[in-house]
């Protein structure tokens, strides 16, 4: 069945994909810096984001959300709303046609709340009306009779409180059997002799606040009934096929009756892995028989989607006098919020990367994620490794101080290399140049300290202009970190690509590529086209808009996997297409599925590998940061950042630099300013006025070096590049602040009162 794309009648602009682009561009081959294929439509305003779509006869949907963190629902009164002007539908959980619950890994989240709400912002009812304002007014007339319940808000106490999900949705999936209430997953990694003693030991308790992905384009989409009981959903998402597989059962439809099409995505960073408007929009559209558009505002975006898991981490590092790590012990507590989302995988990542890119023969790592009535958490760039990197790098700085060893030397001395064994028992193979990235980042020269007095905008606090910089201290920090590339722990991961080879008007060979890999801004469109041109040896290649209608799953644009997987799939399909055309001499259309090397689950009791590696590949990064702190004002200014990253092979180097710079900025945000604040589970800062994001004045110049050491298992030797900069930058900024202040600074984001008054 093919998709009725013409719906975009009213506003047929350039959809993601390259076919609609009318400006021709020089696009390079693999390894060449090439301009973005969507660059021009994005600078002219032609590029259609999910919020820009429209269709004839379209209604506007609105979602009624809970204002309680935890409450029983005694009843929902909709009759007044139904009679409001312009209103076509008011729906509650009773109207969900199929399965009442969905979820990325476990169906524990109601499409619309049934008998209780478990978080502030949980969807309770839906309205569709002629005008968005009519929908909003009708929504205000829906009365939900709530009986407030005591919210579970302290993750430390959650394991002793009433279970939020008495049916334990994550039990029986092969994880460690942990009978405590509200445990989503707990995991232990035990390696060597965790009781081994060193000559010295350092200890710390670290805390990470809740970070938001804060992609700039809030959630939105358009659902269009196909007139035959099925539905087309145009939406900004990260994984089209898994959206479809969650949506279809809730609508009581076959997967083929639900077609997900990628609309323009205004950033993602993990926050679009979970569903937003997909089922809601489809329910309203199928109910009314009209297209329905839903656009979230910023407040709804903050309250409606998952965030980065906040964490509390206790760590103890033992080392020999010469600096060698002897043993690491760590306990990690993550707050998953009301529903599981991808929490189980975050737990595993936090465990797997707890020790950093260092040789640790003896380790005991425990990681637990609990349900609570705090904001729900799931995927965000760095996925479990960000939290632990902040902790292990603080510990390495402490060790360096105790041992009086240069922090960079200490890291070099312990740097992992191929052949070493990770705490999970996996032997490192392939490319893993930890010492090289550390050396390269350490060798970057920061600028000389600036004189005083100076332009107030070059002082911490900037335009406040309250001091002349008397209280300014400068510090240089350093950090290294690593993370897995691709999915892990036995997940059967794949990516499909389809290539049509045909003779053009003048007989010349042309190609059309289909791949459902989501372009979220990272540049996978370019990757696909560069690979196709390289493999086919022709210039005339177009990429069709991504859709579930005409190609198999590409998997998710997450886990730094999309470039690897899409390149693998397109390479495979191109080679097969050429071969078949060679053999048959006619136009061909072939689809191929690419799989990366297989992985195996970890032992639920010991966290050790079973049967084979748990991870496909790893990428590392190191970063040097220069910061200035005004210890009278408690304010910070980052002066300069230098970083080196292990990328395997850069497919489009300019895009890789962009990923490093952007990923670094998000880590700066977590270090200095970004935190979702809550009171009793209620979010108190759901706006860009109160949730701060780094601006041009907060992000310093960034010097990045690419370390290209080809990964034998990766197509063309490449690795993913999106996450390592975010993993390492929060830790590196904190290291610089510690150097400037001499304080421990064990919590991010750092608050002014923690660096004031030295």
């Amino acid at each position, binding site marked *: 069945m093919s998709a009725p794309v013409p719906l975009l009648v009213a506003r047929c602009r350039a959809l993601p994909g390259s076919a609609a682009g009318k400006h021709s561009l020089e696009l390079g081959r693999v390894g060449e810096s090439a*301009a973005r294929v969507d660059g021009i439509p994005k*600078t002219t305003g032609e590029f259609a984001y999910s919020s820009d779509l429209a269709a004839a006869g379209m209604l506007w949907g609105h979602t009624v959300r809970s204002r309680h963190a935890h409450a029983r629902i005694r009843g929902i009164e909709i009759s007044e709303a139904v009679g409001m002007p312009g209103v076509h539908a008011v729906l509650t959980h009773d109207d969900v046609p199929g399965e009442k619950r969905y979820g990325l890994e476990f169906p524990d989240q109601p499409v619309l709340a049934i008998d209780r709400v478990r978080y502030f912002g949980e969807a309770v009812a839906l309205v569709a009306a002629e005008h968005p304002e009519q929908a909003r007014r009708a929504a205000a007339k829906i009365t939900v009779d709530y009986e407030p319940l005591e919210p579970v808000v302290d993750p430390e106490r959650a394991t002793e409180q009433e279970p939020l999900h008495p049916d334990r949705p994550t039990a029986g999936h092969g994880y460690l059997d942990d009978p405590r209430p509200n445990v989503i997953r707990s995991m232990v990694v035990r390696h060597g002799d965790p009781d081994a003693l060193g000559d010295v030991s350092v200890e710390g308790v670290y805390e990470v606040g809740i970070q938001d992905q804060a992609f*700039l*384009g809030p959630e939105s989409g358009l659902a269009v009934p196909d007139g035959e009981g099925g539905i087309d959903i145009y939406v900004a998402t990260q994984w089209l096929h898994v959206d479809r597989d969650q949506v279809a059962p809730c609508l009581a439809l076959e997967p083929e009756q639900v077609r997900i099409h990628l609309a323009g995505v205004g950033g993602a960073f993990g926050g679009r892995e979970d569903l937003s408007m997909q089922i809601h929009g489809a329910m309203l559209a199928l109910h009314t028989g009209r297209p329905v558009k839903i656009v979230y505002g910023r407040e709804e975006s903050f309250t409606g989607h998952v965030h980065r898991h906040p964490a509390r981490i206790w760590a103890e590092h033992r080392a020999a006098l010469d600096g060698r790590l002897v043993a690491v012990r760590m306990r990690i507590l993550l707050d998953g919020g009301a529903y599981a989302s991808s929490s189980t995988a975050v737990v595993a990542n936090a465990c797997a990367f707890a020790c950093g890119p260092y040789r640790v023969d003896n380790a005991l790592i425990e990681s637990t994620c609990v349900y609570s009535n705090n904001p729900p958490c799931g995927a965000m760039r760095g996925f479990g490794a960000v939290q632990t990197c902040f902790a292990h790098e603080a510990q390495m700085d402490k060790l360096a101080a105790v041992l009086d060893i240069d922090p960079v030397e200490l890291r070099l001395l312990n740097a992992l290399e191929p052949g070493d064994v990770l705490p999970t028992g996996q032997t490192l193979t392939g490319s893993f140049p930890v010492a090289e990235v550390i050396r390269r980042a350490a060798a970057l020269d920061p600028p000389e300290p600036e004189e005083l007095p100076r332009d107030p905008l070059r002082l911490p606090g900037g335009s406040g202009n309250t001091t002349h910089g008397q209280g300014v201290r400068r510090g240089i920090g350093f950090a290294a970190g690593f993370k897995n590339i691709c999915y892990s722990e036995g997940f059967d991961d794949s990516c499909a690509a389809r290539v049509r080879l045909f003779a053009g008007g003048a007989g010349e060979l042309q190609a059309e590529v289909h791949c459902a890999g989501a372009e979220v801004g990272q540049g996978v469109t370019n990757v696909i086209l560069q690979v196709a041109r390289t493999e086919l040896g022709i210039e005339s290649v177009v990429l069709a808009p991504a859709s579930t209608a005409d190609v198999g799953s590409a998997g998710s644009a997450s886990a730094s996997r999309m470039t690897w997987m899409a390149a693998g799939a397109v390479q495979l399909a191109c080679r097969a297409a050429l071969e078949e055309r060679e053999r048959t001499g006619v136009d061909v259309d072939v689809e191929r599925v690419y799989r990366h090397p297989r992985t195996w689950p970890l032992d639920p009791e010991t966290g050790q590998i079973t049967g084979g590696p748990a991870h496909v590949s790893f990428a590392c990064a190191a970063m040097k940061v220069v910061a200035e702190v005004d210890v009278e004002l408690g304010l910070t200014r980052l002066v300069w950042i230098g970083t080196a990253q292990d990328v395997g092979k850069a497919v489009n180097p300019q895009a890789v630099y*962009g990923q490093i710079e952007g990923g670094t*900025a998000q880590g700066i945000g977590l270090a200095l300013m970004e935190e979702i604040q809550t009171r009793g589970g209620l979010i108190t800062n759901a706006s860009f006025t109160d949730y701060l994001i780094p601006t041009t004045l907060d992000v310093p*110049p*960034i010097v990045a070096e690419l370390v290209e050491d080809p990964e034998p298992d990766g197509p063309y030797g490449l690795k993913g590049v999106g996450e390592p900069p975010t993993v390492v930058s929060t830790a590196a900024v904190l290291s610089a602040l510690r150097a400037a202040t001499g304080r421990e600074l064990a919590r991010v984001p750092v608050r002014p009162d923690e660096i004031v008054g030295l």
Partner: protein
Amino acid sequence: MPEPVSEQTISVEINGETYEQEVEARKLLVHFIRDVVDLTGTHVGCDTGNCGACTVLMDGKTIKSCMLLAIQADGATITTVEGLAAGGELTPLQRAFSASHALQCGYCTPGMLLSAAYLLEQNPHPSEEEIRRGIQGNICRCTGYVNIVEAIKSVAEGGGA
């Protein structure tokens, strides 16, 4: 005191075309531009005046169009991103943003381009510091700003927005 009005007819020139239209008094300028005039290149990122995605030029100055009512633009001349390449020819800033990866998702790009155009008109040869100040009201969540600053610098050095 005059009675409050709920609708008002306004006349606004956008990208060289005049739109005379009855609008609800409560309608924001950004929604007028997007939903009534159907120019969706002007984006909404926050609706609280923080992100700059909705930046347009009004009577030659940058404004955040989510911070004004449509009726406040009565009689004004507005340029949106669609008006930059009015003659079909991309501006040097548009070319530089596209060529040097000064965008990823591109959601911030229209607002960023208008702020950059205004900056270069006021100050054709800004220092890096002045560029950063000129676009501090525009948030980009994807790029870390490095390539955006570079793109603007390259246009300034090349002499003209």
